[in-house]
């Protein structure tokens, strides 16, 4: 890989992505982990832009960083166990071994390393370097593909129904229970907000007196 501006930008965004991801899974403070998750997602958005997918890069920033990461931060705030005593469980060594072995396996398949070492038929050798240029109107083509009945219209509608059902289900799950609804908090607030009860007090003794 020769050193061009593009490869330098690629290395920068890869470092942001992988460094942020490593800090997400290792940091002790969960809130810092969420911020590092935002950093890592931003690196992925940069990789999308480098792959000439500008629409997906924008969606990555808007949906992932702007919505999903913020939702995760809300959940962290609502469940105050930010700094746990032990961030990882007692099988983290086995997890590390599994992750490293899987990465070595994937790396040996996707890179031409094994072909250079002389092992026949192991690597998939994805060595494409000069793909054809992207069509000018790829974003318009993407939009047209989503509403084309011959292509992605049915999956698009199914995805919207899935999102709708998931959001309604989430709201129903976190809805306060019936006992919480009948909590006397609003009544107390109304009494505090309305400091004019002497009128009622003044009426009541009169009534009592008249009955006597």
């Amino acid at each position, binding site marked *: *890989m020769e050193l061009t501006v593009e*490869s330098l930008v690629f290395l920068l965004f*890869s470092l942001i*992505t*992988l460094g942020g*991801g490593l800090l*997400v*899974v290792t940091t002790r403070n*969960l809130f810092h982990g*969420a911020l590092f*998750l935002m950093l*890592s*997602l931003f690196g*992925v958005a940069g990789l*999308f832009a*480098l*792959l*000439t*997918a500008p629409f*997906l890069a924008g969606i*990555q920033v808007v949906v*992932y960083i702007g*919505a999903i990461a913020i*939702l*995760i931060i809300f*959940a962290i705030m609502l*469940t105050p*166990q930010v700094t746990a005593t032990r*961030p990882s*469980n007692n099988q*983290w060594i086995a*997890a*590390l071994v*599994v*992750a490293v072995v899987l*990465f070595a396996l*994937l*790396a040996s398949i*996707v*890179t031409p390393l094994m072909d250079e070492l002389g092992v026949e038929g192991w690597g998939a050798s*994805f*060595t*494409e*370097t*000069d*793909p*054809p*240029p992207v*069509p000018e109107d790829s974003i318009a083509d*993407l939009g047209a593909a989503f509403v084309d009945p011959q292509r*992605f219209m049915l*999956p698009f509608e199914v*995805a919207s129904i*899935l*999102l709708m059902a*998931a959001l309604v289900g*989430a*709201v129903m*799950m*976190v809805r306060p229970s019936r006992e919480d609804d009948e909590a006397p908090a609003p009544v107390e607030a109304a009494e505090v907000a309305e400091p004019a009860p002497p009128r009622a007090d003044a009426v009541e003794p009169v009534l009592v007196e008249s009955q006597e």
Partner: protein
Amino acid sequence: MVPLYMYLLVSAALFCIGLYGVLSRRNAIAILMSIELMLNAANINLVAFWRYGQPENISGQAFAAFVFVVAAAEVAVGLALIINIYRQRRSVVADDVDLMKW
């Protein structure tokens, strides 16, 4: 351009980082964040194969967009579940939720 296998290598590394997080973290929200990393690794793969394969066929980007939708649904339901569990058990540690454990 950068060779295709460099993108695949970054994606594989990000996926394995997320896998380590899912297997080793105790906090359920941290597990959910690691799942987000794994979904992003899959997205990098989809877009990279689209770019280096047939960029005139938009299907790779369309599939990546569907992954966005599913990720949003997954994180909404997952966080609702975690908040509900926290209300009942005062804990978000995944090992503490053992009601259905035999």
